[in-house]
């Protein structure tokens, strides 16, 4: 089962090693990991995706909480959450088929972030499935380079009494 965990930490060098090492040595493969500083100075938020059952997610949460620099841990996949990934795709698109490519990627609400003689760089955001689909559609034209951010995720707001 896919587990998505959100971890709030102090922004210290080495925190990443502690977190990844802790998951790795329990035999779980990290599928995706993204991290960035958030508003408050000195605080980072990790989104970690790995495969495991409910109990393994709970165990990893408990172990992560023991790290001195970890402020909070939340298992997002055991509740409602929103998840996004960003991808940059460098695709072959010479002038003759460029309109066709642009039309296709419009379906994925993609934006062009760079353009050149040989092709385009596109930005796509969405969940994993959407990005996979976009890559599939672009493959026939020839993808020259691809980068994916990994998931960032957040618990849903919800409605009181709803």
């Amino acid at each position, binding site marked *: 089962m896919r587990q998505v965990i959100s971890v709030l930490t*102090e922004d210290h060098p080495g925190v990443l*090693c502690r977190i990844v090492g802790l998951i790795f040595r329990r035999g779980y493969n990290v599928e995706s990991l993204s991290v960035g500083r958030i508003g408050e100075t000195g605080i980072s938020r990790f989104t970690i995706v790995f495969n495991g059952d409910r109990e393994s997610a709970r*165990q990893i949460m408990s172990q992560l*909480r*023991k*790290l001195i*620099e970890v*402020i909070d841990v939340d298992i997002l996949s055991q509740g409602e959450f929103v998840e996004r990934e960003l991808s940059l795709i460098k695709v072959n698109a010479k002038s003759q088929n460029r309109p066709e490519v642009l039309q296709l990627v419009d379906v994925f609400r993609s934006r062009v972030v760079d353009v050149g003689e040989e092709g385009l760089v596109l930005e796509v955001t969405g969940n994993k499935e959407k990005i996979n689909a976009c890559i599939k559609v672009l493959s026939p034209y020839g993808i020259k380079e691809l980068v994916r951010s990994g998931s960032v995720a957040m618990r849903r707001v919800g409605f009181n009494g709803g």
Partner: protein
Amino acid sequence: MTGAEMILRCLELEGVEVAFGIPGGAVIPIYDELYKRKSFKHVLVRHEQSAAHAADGYARASGKVGVCIATSGPGSTNLVTGIATAYMDSVPMVAVVGQVARSFMGRDAFQETDIIGLTLPIVKHSFKVSSVSEIYRVIRGAFYIAKTGRPGPVLIEIPLDVQREEGVWREEEISFKGYNPNGFVSLDDIPKAVEFMKDAERPVILAGGGIIISGATRELLALAEKLEVPVATSLMGKGAFPEEHRLSLGMAGMHGTPAANKALCEADLIIAVGLRFSDRSVGKHEKFATSAKIIHMDYDPAEINKNVKAHAYLIGDAKKTLKELLEAVSELKLEKGRKEWLEKIVSWKEEFKIELEKSGPVRPWYVIRSAWELTKGEALVTTEVGQNQMWAALYYKVKGPRRFITSGGLGTMGYGLPAAMGASLADPSGKPVLNISGDGSFMMSVQELDTCARYNLPVKVLLLNNRSLGMVRQWQELFFEKRYSETIYSREPDYVALARSLGAQGWTVSEASQVRDAIERALETPGPVVINFVIPQEEKVFPMMVPGTTLDNVITQENLGRR
């Protein structure tokens, strides 16, 4: 004020009495400052691994934080086994290591090693000091983290130039955003636990090292006596409950007593306190006590349901949790009593009788029983790892906490002798410390006899010498059709001459009739002593649970031939 001066001042403020270490290029300023200030006793050991083990032994015997110091590179890597040992057994320790100057870092400089990276999985936390202004917070913080909550080792890496750097001494409040050692208390299940205790007909308490760490032995005794519940301990729990008490079952586990293991197998309720259900204590987790309800009490919430599923759990310091529980059961009256259950337990205890042969070859249990009698069960005992450790655990009955010191989790051979050094420095009475040892383990830290001699430490090594790596040899005999691959030594050192050359006394005993006299003589002799007890090579530790099975799947001397 220089960084080194600040370091020493912080250690003074922490009340450090003794530190174990070896100086080296990257810690000379710290040692130079120690030379001037004489802040605490420094024990110059013969190997950094021993510095860590000695700090660990000191911590376990005293309950205080153990301190070791090593230089960068090999000095720091030599600490690794000692740090891992402390981590596995939740021992409070602060390891101060030097590092090359900041400008040399990352250039593979002489004696540079990424010790923080190397120790990441085996420390409670680690600090890299990158400026003199961080020293106060880091060192005071390291002690705070090491000793609070579930204790553990903390490593501090200090570059050489930071030790020399001038800075301004400034004291500050120490706190860490994500660290609240008392933040995880959960006692909601107390009513459920009380209900379980009321209904149980065959309850057993399984006590672990957490009882000793939190100083909860009195509360444990009160609970056991109030509810008439027999108590088994893990290896780490030895000393949590007086082993001569009528309710004591002794140690449970792979080499546990029949009474402890049978009681756990037949129990309908297991009250586990300060225990992580190590495989060595309970066997195969999925098959452990499947018909019993389990109440798990631990300080560390990550331990709940990690190895064994709990039907009720209480999270918090064992002493406080047990107090709450005692309060909750104060009105409880046992309707049926435990007569039948306790009688059964007495009969199991009767089964485990050993023959003390007072003549002929030296039997290991006779050595340990004799030592136990001659020290009235009050000695501070350390052990090495292997057969010697299990014999010690089975036959040296411990009266109270912090008197039986052994590497439980990591199982570190070579631990006992340096730990005995540390433990003897923690005990102001100056009474002898017994290190129960095998010849395999003994040779892994033998150089520390010299340290014991230099500081005149009363460490008495009871060397159970079977000229082999006995526990592996035992496994090879039982499970590998006697293919003794690389476990038997073709020659042995002259242990008496070795002891003497390192400044200790030593003698050899090869007759059971000489055992008691030899131990008495050792106890009366000042300083370190090695008694080389020549035991039969084929001696084994029984009972033994068949590895990977359940506690009732046991090999004994009697059923050995039938297997």
